[in-house]
């Protein structure tokens, strides 16, 4: 296609340029955010040394959104200027860079956060303590009872105290940690976790941490294998209720509201919350140059503890979900397109309604409905439920695209073929389809690229894709931004490769 080639080239360049621009803008925003955060604090501003709630009231304060500290402090210190963030690394970064002057968090979650190096210090302890327990499904009293017996045994023989000292006091993360092997055969115990250091995190490609060790010991105690699945905090209790997992063990406070929904074991830990502030506003001079800083962050976030393997696994998950969603989605799109264009009123109405509904519902909500309601008891792996959800979503979008592509082909092409004696099908395949494909290929490319980016929400249903993996690394290294930049580059490369592949396929047709 001589004519087609030039269009191909310009399309290709435009698409590449646009993708490039998008990622540049994204990275720029990040850097701008970082540098703004750095400038936000005034050097003359003195940090008060607060030691009580009364002194804290009126200051700027970062908390985890919806956390107990959030609820408690909102009530006690109504005049504070709250910044509600989603993860511990972000909290630390916000105080360190001067966006807020104070933050409040469970003290144990700060282990590994290197407060001194970040120019942070602990101010005072809040009068806010909660017991932490394992949550079970209300119908699963037997498992809960087994766990309670197990818990009382390890309390009695001192194992739990050793564990607490090792993980939450000393926090030595090396090979001195005892290895606990669990059984390989049998029905696995499925545990929902959220990935927060030092309770559960991935080290050298395997789950590790206080709660992980405890549950491995418990699994051995009842003679079953155990698997861990990451969930978003808001998704864990629904997953437990819909029997996607057997238990939640993720530093979960025993509260009255939660007790209405799930069954809690006895407490194995008591949390206490602290308020943290900067030591001084004087900026530390960076001894290291830019390149070296990037290098050390790269080593810390990507190389250490084989974290790159985690990224590779996440990338694999993202690619699998994207590829199958696009492939099956195109097939669904073709079926919907022909239903929509058929003369039968019923078929076309069904397709129209279906497309209308799917396009009207946010993909996240649609995926959640598929996961928690429609396929809740199917035993289908989360990955395939995500693929089904994205396939329908993509199919609904591309069906309309296909339809407009086909309708944009001059009817004369079709008539000319008919008049020569071609059948309707071969007429369509030979003369209509190639033009339609050429017409829609650039729009299709955009839609496929946005599908890849949309798959970043699969973390909500417990899939460790690229985005989720970066969250896990962030929660382990307490580095709020570097993993994000790394995965945004990977997404960019993925989108670009997909564009190239689609162009190759489109020019073959």
């Amino acid at each position, binding site marked *: 296609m001589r*004519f087609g080639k030039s269009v191909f080239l310009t399309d290709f360049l435009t698409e590449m340029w646009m993708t490039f621009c998008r990622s540049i803008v994204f990275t720029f925003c990040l850097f701008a955010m970082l540098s703004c955060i750095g400038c936000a604090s005034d050097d003359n501003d003195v940090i008060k040394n607060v030691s009580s709630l009364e002194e804290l009231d009126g200051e700027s304060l970062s908390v985890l959104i919806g956390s107990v500290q959030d609820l408690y402090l909102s009530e006690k210190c109504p005049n504070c200027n709250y910044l509600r963030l989603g993860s511990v690394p972000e909290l630390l970064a916000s105080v360190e860079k001067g966006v807020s002057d104070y933050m409040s968090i469970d003290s144990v979650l700060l282990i590994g956060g290197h407060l001194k190096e970040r120019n942070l210090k602990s101010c005072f302890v809040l009068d806010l303590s909660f017991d932490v327990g394992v949550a079970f499904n209300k119908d699963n009293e037997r498992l809960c009872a087994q766990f309670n017996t197990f818990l009382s045994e390890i309390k009695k023989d001192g194992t739990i105290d050793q564990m607490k000292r090792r993980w939450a006091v000393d926090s030595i993360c090396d090979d001195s940690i005892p290895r606990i092997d669990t059984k390989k055969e049998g029905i696995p115990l499925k545990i929902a976790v959220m990935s927060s250091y030092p309770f559960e995190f991935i080290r050298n490609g395997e789950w590790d941490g206080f709660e992980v060790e405890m549950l491995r010991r418990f699994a051995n105690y009842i003679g079953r294998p155990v698997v861990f699945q990451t969930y978003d905090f808001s998704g864990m209790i629904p997953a437990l209720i819909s029997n996607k997992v057997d238990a939640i063990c993720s530093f979960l406070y025993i509260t009255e509201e939660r007790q209405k929904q799930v069954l809690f074991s006895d407490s194995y830990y008591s949390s206490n919350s602290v308020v943290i502030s900067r030591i001084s506003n004087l900026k530390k001079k960076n001894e290291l140059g830019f390149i070296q800083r990037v290098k050390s962050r790269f080593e810390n976030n990507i190389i250490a503890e084989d974290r790159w393997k985690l990224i590779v696994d996440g990338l694999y998950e993202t690619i699998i979900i994207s590829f199958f969603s696009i492939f099956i989605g195109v097939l669904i799109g073709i079926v919907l397109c022909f239903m929509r264009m058929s003369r039968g009123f019923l078929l076309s109405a069904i397709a129209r309604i279906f497309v209308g509904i799917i396009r009207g519902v946010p993909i996240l909500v649609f995926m959640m409905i598929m996961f928690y309601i429609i396929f809740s008891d199917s035993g289908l792996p989360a990955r395939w439920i995500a693929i089904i959800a994205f396939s329908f979503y993509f199919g609904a979008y591309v069906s309309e695209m296909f339809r407009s592509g086909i309708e944009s082909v001059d009817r*004369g092409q079709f*008539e*000319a*073929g008919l*008049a020569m004696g071609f059948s309707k099908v071969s007429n369509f395949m030979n003369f209509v389809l190639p*033009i339609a494909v050429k017409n829609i290929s650039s729009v299709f490319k955009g839609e496929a690229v946005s599908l890849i980016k949309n798959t970043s929400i699969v973390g909500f249903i417990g899939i460790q894709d690229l985005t989720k993996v970066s969250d896990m690394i962030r929660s382990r290294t307490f580095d709020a931004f570097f993993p994000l930049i790394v995965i945004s580059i990977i997404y960019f490369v993925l989108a670009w490769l997909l564009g190239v592949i689609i162009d190759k396929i489109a020019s073959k047709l």
Partner: protein
Amino acid sequence: MITVNHLSKSFIQDGSMVEVLKDVSCEIAKGEVISIIGPSGTGKSTFLRCINHLETATSGEIIVDGHNILDKRANLKLLRRKMGMVFQNFNLFECKTVLENVMIGPIKLLGMPKNEAEKEGLRLLQMVGVSGKANSYPSELSGGQKQRVAIARCLSMKPEIILFDEPTSALDPTMVSEVLSVIRKLAKEGMTMAIVTHEMKFAYDVSTRIFFMCDGYIYEEGTPEQIFYHPQKPQTQSFVNRLRSLQFDVDNRHYDVYGMHQEISVFCQKYVIDRQQEYRMELILEELLINILPFTGPIQIVIEYSEVDYNLSLQIIQRNCTKEILDNPRNDQISVKIIKGSSQLVSENQHGEDRILTIHIRK
């Protein structure tokens, strides 16, 4: 070869039934070249499209080689292969090169080997004079070249008849002749053809028979000689002489004569009427209106111009009048002289209560 009996076709347009073809019967024999002429919107193209079933006729029958094409059991694909179709908008396969356009039919439908189809395709392209563009895409060709490729594509299927649906209507005037000369060549070689066209001279030259279609019927048919020089029916006459007319109703004494002159000058420009003729007509009208016609009742003025023989005529119809208009002794004799001097033929007669004066303006 093709027999059409009582064909009718209706469309539903904007909720109401439009009967495009009312009752069409005809016969096309092998070797004939039929031109279908007639005013726009009288179903010529629809008729042609019904023959190869691109439009489904409402009733009637179309018999091609003994098979009724409207029969559900008829092998439509096979029957269509016998009938090539050339469209007004060319409809070349845009995603294929010129050569592929003429190769794809033989390869996919006639089972011709590829190299043979290529040889045959190049021969056909040579015949229509576009072999130099064999590897171009249709979008790179001019309209005339596209239409010639379309004809070659049609011939590649070795049809028994070719249906041309206004083959030159979408072309620039400069490209019309190149397409017509290809069709002429085909006619010479004895190809059976049915051509819907507005090119009258071409239709006269090339056809063995002419169908004049009007109002959903074949209104008159005959040899080119009969239709163009001795048309029997009034609508045919008006059509073949390509009469253009302009009419004024002067119904009061204060009629806007300057407005009328303006309209006449626009009419003359539109049909490119000779300046001399236009001048003479204005002179005659002026003399008539100012010096001769007494306003005794409403007057109708009809100007007619034939695009075939370039005759310009003026008709004055005076209602409720029995007196002579021009040969009245009371007239200003200088005015009468001017009128007679500017005209070729003047006749005056009584038609019921109206007096009609017809003046053919000198060329």
